[in-house]
């Protein structure tokens, strides 16, 4: 069926972006894949209508964010892996390039990001990773632009402060 071939192509084009965004939301690659899969399962039956409207990416983004926020709300406990080789995104190699300082900075950012409230985290990811405008982020999360502005400002400030604090403490250690 044409709409299902279109869906597969669309997923092939966008899957990496969604899984990466989901990684930032959940802090774990496997949970991120599950999240994207759950969201796409909800999109699949409506694909014909969604693709005809021409805003499929926005629709998937909204579903993905909703699934994430719902899963966080429903979760009363959290699985913690005991496998040292499979400890989620925080222990994975972030990239081939980069000094040890950069690696530390990245890991620190992820830890701080995971400490943000889920909705605030979603705002940061949508605004600063997916580069959505405030209006687009507001539409995705179903709230006002004012709320997005304030949440983004607070979240970004926490991240900046935390990164700066980590950098200054690192500099002090280096001086010694």
């Amino acid at each position: 069926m044409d709409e299902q071939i279109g869906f597969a192509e669309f997923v092939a084009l966008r899957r990496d972006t969604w899984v990466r965004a989901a990684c930032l939301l959940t802090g774990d690659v496997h949970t991120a894949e599950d999240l994207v899969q759950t969201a796409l399962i909800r999109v699949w039956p409506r694909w014909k209508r969604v693709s005809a409207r021409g805003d499929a990416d926005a629709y998937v983004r909204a579903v993905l964010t909703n699934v994430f926020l719902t899963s966080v709300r429903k979760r009363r406990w959290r699985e913690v892996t005991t496998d040292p080789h499979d400890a989620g995104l925080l222990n994975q190699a972030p990239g081939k390039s980069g000094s040890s300082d950069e690696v530390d900075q990245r890991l620190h950012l992820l830890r701080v990001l995971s400490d943000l409230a889920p909705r605030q985290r979603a705002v940061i990811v949508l605004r600063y990773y997916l580069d959505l405008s405030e209006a687009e982020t507001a539409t995705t999360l179903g709230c006002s632009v004012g709320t997005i502005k304030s949440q983004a400002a607070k979240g970004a400030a926490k991240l900046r402060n935390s990164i700066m604090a980590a950098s200054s403490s690192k500099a002090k250690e280096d001086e010694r």
Partner: protein
Amino acid sequence: MNETDECDDVLHNLLHANVDHIHASTDLADRVEVGARRRRTARRSVTGVVALVAAGAVAGVLTAIHPGSVPTAAAQLPRCAQQLNTYLRAERRPKPNQGLGNAKPLVPGTPVGAVVCRYAGLNELRPEGDLAGSATITDKAQISRLQSAVNKSQIFTGAMYCPFGPSDEAVMFFTYGRGTANLEVFYDRWCGMLHTADASYLVRGDLYQIVTNWTGIWQHPATPSAR
């Protein structure tokens, strides 16, 4: 570019640097399709079950609103056989007194439907034993009237020789709903008796009028007065 914009850029770059090495599974679309199909099947099953339950509830409500009509009973009411001798009559003779008296009603409980089948007797235009008329009763008041008339009959404790019979007979079925056996009552109009699998009874009351009103009268040259 002001300081905030610079910080935003740093944040953007840091976020990208953290996850841009990650790649999604190549079979994601396939897994999604399988999952979506399973979800749809499960939803359809649930919808089917809900629809069945809802249909049952609606049928129950309709029955409560229109107590005279019992569609579920009507659906399983027996049909009259075309020939009287089709029925397997286990006992045509009165049984000896078993000390039951009339303590146990002939038609117990609350039947939800009844069928009356009248068969032609001797010297009728139709061949003897052919189905001459029938009535299917689902109205509660009418079922109750028939049950009451039948239950006025008295259990027969002796032996009887009936010179006219058997002729001009009717068979009555009382149903009690799905999954329960029908009660079969044979009405021997000439001898004024009712026969069930358990016992025989002497007819009292207006059973003849009820049966003939619903299924027509026996066209016999020597029709006796109504019993």
